[in-house]
């Protein structure tokens, strides 16, 4: 039942309202609203009960194994949440004066330092509010760099075909033409194809390493050489940083600019869609272009540096500082892990992925890249099952829900047919991995003996399989009281 269907005119959560409706005398009629907005009129308990019960209809990390590839669904420590909401932090106005800001700014400064260490980049800006905004900032810096040199003929950004959709979309937003680079059969960038398209029109390349194919791009140094020789820059999509934390630094691989997804690698909550935080790091030559604000330390005082003192900055990404509360959570997480802990993240994420890959392969599932190590994630392709049994990756995904496991990422990357991109993360115990593997085997058996059962899944969720086609065709995006 929708909250609106529990609404009744005149009902209210009285304790949540100012006691009286004070009279507004100074706003002329012509500016005033005439109609009551369609907000629910419910009691406090009705609201609490409604949203509590709604919440129970979600899978989440706190309730289920959630091996969504490329999303790094690891445990979000509860302590990060409660500490980021301490009154001193929660109630600080973004434009509070400097002496009511030292606590917050010191955390931001320290976080910048940690991220520099982790990435091997020279300077970091915390401004971008998610990965895609980090990408935007990064590509905008690439543009600004070339522009500053008067090198305006660089109109193309190269993107491997396996790249996440935000990469090409970002390049477009920055007014670049996108050129796709094919992948070879082992999951590496096709170097010959790359060489063919590189040229004076190349502004740069956007790479994820490990790539979204779940393998480490081994020729990264060679690629960096090719791009740099052509005058282009290398952009690092840090969505997969979890795989290499403390093991390899993007700066050492030759990247000029990178973004990180703190809501992945630094375990800030995904919140059913967001928020995220997508700080960017740069090599020496891109420092002038970093988005503002930045935090600096002078004489033990922390200060915010804005566009005023950074004339070449690509500018601001948000109205105020950034997704500050998320950055606080990431900082707390980073401090709890510490340098050793970060190393371990990569190790155990990789251990878990390789273990699952081996076990699933042993169980007869086809790997997309059987000759490669898994990084923190890996790909299984169900194309045989789709073809021979008529049971596709989506069917397996839905049936997994009945077994109590969130499905892996499906149908991405686009170039592997009927794929599952599986990322267990380091915070899952071996027992969970084994349980998932057993479920996959059981579903395989079902698919072989009773394909219909799998194709009709799920059965145990609050709803059965939903009609996405109807959703898109007969758009119903808001509830309206008239229809009822």
């Amino acid at each position, binding site marked *: 039942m*929708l909250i609106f269907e529990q609404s009744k005119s005149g009902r209210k959560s009285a304790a*949540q*309202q100012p006691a009286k*409706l*004070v009279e507004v005398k100074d706003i002329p009629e012509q500016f005033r*609203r005439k109609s*009551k*907005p369609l907000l629910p009129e419910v009691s*406090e308990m009705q609201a609490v009960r409604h949203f509590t019960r*709604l*919440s*129970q*209809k979600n899978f989440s*990390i*706190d*309730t289920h194994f959630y091996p969504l590839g490329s*999303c790094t*669904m690891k445990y979000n420590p509860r302590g990060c949440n409660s*500490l980021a*909401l301490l009154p*001193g*932090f*929660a109630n600080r106005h*973004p434009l*509070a004066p400097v002496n*009511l800001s030292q*606590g917050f700014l010191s955390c931001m400064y320290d976080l910048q330092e940690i991220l520099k260490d982790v990435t091997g980049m020279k300077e970091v800006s915390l401004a971008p509010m*998610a990965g895609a905004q980090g990408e*935007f900032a990064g590509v905008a810096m690439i543009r600004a760099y070339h522009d500053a040199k008067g090198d305006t003929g660089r109109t193309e950004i190269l993107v491997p075909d396996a790249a996440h*959709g935000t990469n090409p979309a970002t390049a477009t937003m920055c007014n670049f033409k996108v050129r796709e680079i094919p992948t070879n059969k082992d999951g590496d960038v096709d170097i010959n194809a790359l060489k063919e398209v590189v040229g004076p029109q190349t502004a740069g390349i956007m790479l994820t390493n490990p790539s979204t194919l779940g393998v480490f791009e081994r020729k990264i*140094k060679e690629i960096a050489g090719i791009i740099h020789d052509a005058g282009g820059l290398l952009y690092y999509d840090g969505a997969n940083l979890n795989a290499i934390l403390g093991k*390899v*630094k993007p700066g050492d691989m030759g990247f000029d600019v990178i973004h990180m997804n703190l809501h992945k690698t630094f375990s800030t909550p995904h919140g*059913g*869609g*967001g928020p995220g935080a997508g700080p960017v790091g740069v090599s020496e030559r891109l420092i002038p272009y970093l988005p503002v604000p930045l935090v600096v330390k002078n004489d033990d005082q922390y200060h915010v540096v804005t566009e005023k003192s950074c004339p070449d900055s690509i*500018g601001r990404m*948000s*109205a*105020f*500082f*950034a*997704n500050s*509360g998320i950055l606080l959570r990431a900082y*707390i997480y980073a*401090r709890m892990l*510490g*340098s050793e802990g970060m190393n*371990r993240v990569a190790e*155990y994420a990789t*251990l878990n992925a390789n273990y699952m890959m081996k076990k699933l392969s042993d169980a007869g599932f086809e790997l997309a890249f059987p000759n490669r190590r898994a990084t923190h994630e890996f790909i299984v392709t169900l194309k045989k099952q789709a073809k021979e049994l008529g049971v596709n990756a989506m069917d397996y995904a839905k049936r997994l829900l009945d077994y109590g496991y969130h499905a892996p990422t499906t149908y*991405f990357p686009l170039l592997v047919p009927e794929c599952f991109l599986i990322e267990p993360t380091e*915070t899952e115990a071996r027992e969970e991995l084994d349980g998932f593997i057993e479920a996959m085997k059981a579903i395989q058996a079902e698919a072989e003996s009773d394909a219909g059962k799998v194709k009709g899944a799920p059965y145990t*969720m*609050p*709803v059965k*399989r*939903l009609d996405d086609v109807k*959703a898109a065709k007969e758009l119903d*995006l808001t509830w309206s009281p008239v229809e009822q």
Partner: protein
Amino acid sequence: MPFIPHTDDDVRDMLDAIGVSSIDELFDEIPAELRSGGLETTPEGVSEMEIARIMQERAAQDETRLCFAGGGAYEHHIPAAVWEIATRGEFYSAYTPYQAEASQGTLQLLYEYQTMMASLTGLDVSNASLYDGASALAEAVLMAVRANRKSKSKRILIPRTVHPSYRKVTRTIVTGQGISLEELDYDRDSGYIDPASLPADPGDFAALVIPQPNFFGSLEEVDALTDWAHQHNALVIAVVNPTSLALLKSPGEWGTEGADIACGEGQPLGAPLSSGGPYFGFMCCRQAFVRQMPGRIIGRTVDLDGKEGFTLTLQAREQHIRRSKATSNICTNQGLLVTAATIYMSLIGPAGLEKVAAASHVNTISLVEKLTSLDGVSKVFDRPLFHEAVLKFDSPVDEIIQAMSDQGIVAGIKLEDDYPELENCLMVCATETKTEADLETYKENIERIAVRQMSC
């Protein structure tokens, strides 16, 4: 090993199963020369107890007693239930609802959110959030350029009464695509865009941005501005404060036809000030433009049994399907904040939101009256206002800000960095959270500071 569940036995068994002898071997595809020697400056790990102590000490440094700053981030009462529910693991630690059947909680909530926002703005549809108010405006500008069928122009008219940061962010994001932002200056006496000052022949432009209330808290002549833009075949982008919409005409009702797109900052709906984020940007538009709208959209549909259910829809607009041709690159949005906002709006209700808006309005006026009763303090603009006002002092405001902050009070926002013409001006805001005594405290402190300044 914080957050890692493996025992030594597990590791041994798992390595055996894989057929390697050490975890390190799993990294053998990484060229040896790239392997780093580990982290250098990052400190050693600490326990939750230790970091709690550190954070408590740092948070205590920033403890604010009274906040009179607004400027796009407002202190409102947030019902305790909002965050107690929003941080339930099922909301807090879920991903974007890709598997709809296992995400009905988030999806239904978002559908309810869309309904509320569409109604508040008086428009047909809403997306499921953008990053914040500023970036929502940037996306609205890009969208308007795409959506305006009557004009191919890439010119956008944007008043200087739009939040300076919003204008900066929009500039950051849209200029790469050759879009130009032309600023309209405001009336110095009244702090609004006088419709009479608009050019009769503005030339071709894609859209006009109209803030209501504007950055100074003043009310714009939204009807006249909307009609003017529409007369020139431009779209109208409304930038609005959602709290104000309980009192003020919704963008859908502006002028003869209503605004085309409304966007703004969702923070007043249940998000703590939290140093500027996470907040969320909202965006609503007419049905006709829905396919040009960026961001996630949730639709109601049915399941195999014909039972109502909710799912992500119109995904063909988005980067993961459309890639370089997507409406935007946005992927992660601000879902958790939308969760909070939806709970907030449900708890506060239409009458409650109106009371919040009215109390904030009246408190601000009362504060202005108190302060302008002092020598050397005057009100700058004579327009009707929502819940902010610009005050002029007869000495530099930095000293006031500093002296007040020593008392734990955030006095307001200094304007002269962005508006050189507003020297010695402070913008103040008193929401429903402020009592009569709080306003008096402000006044008394100003008196005290003034006395001190004189005696220097």
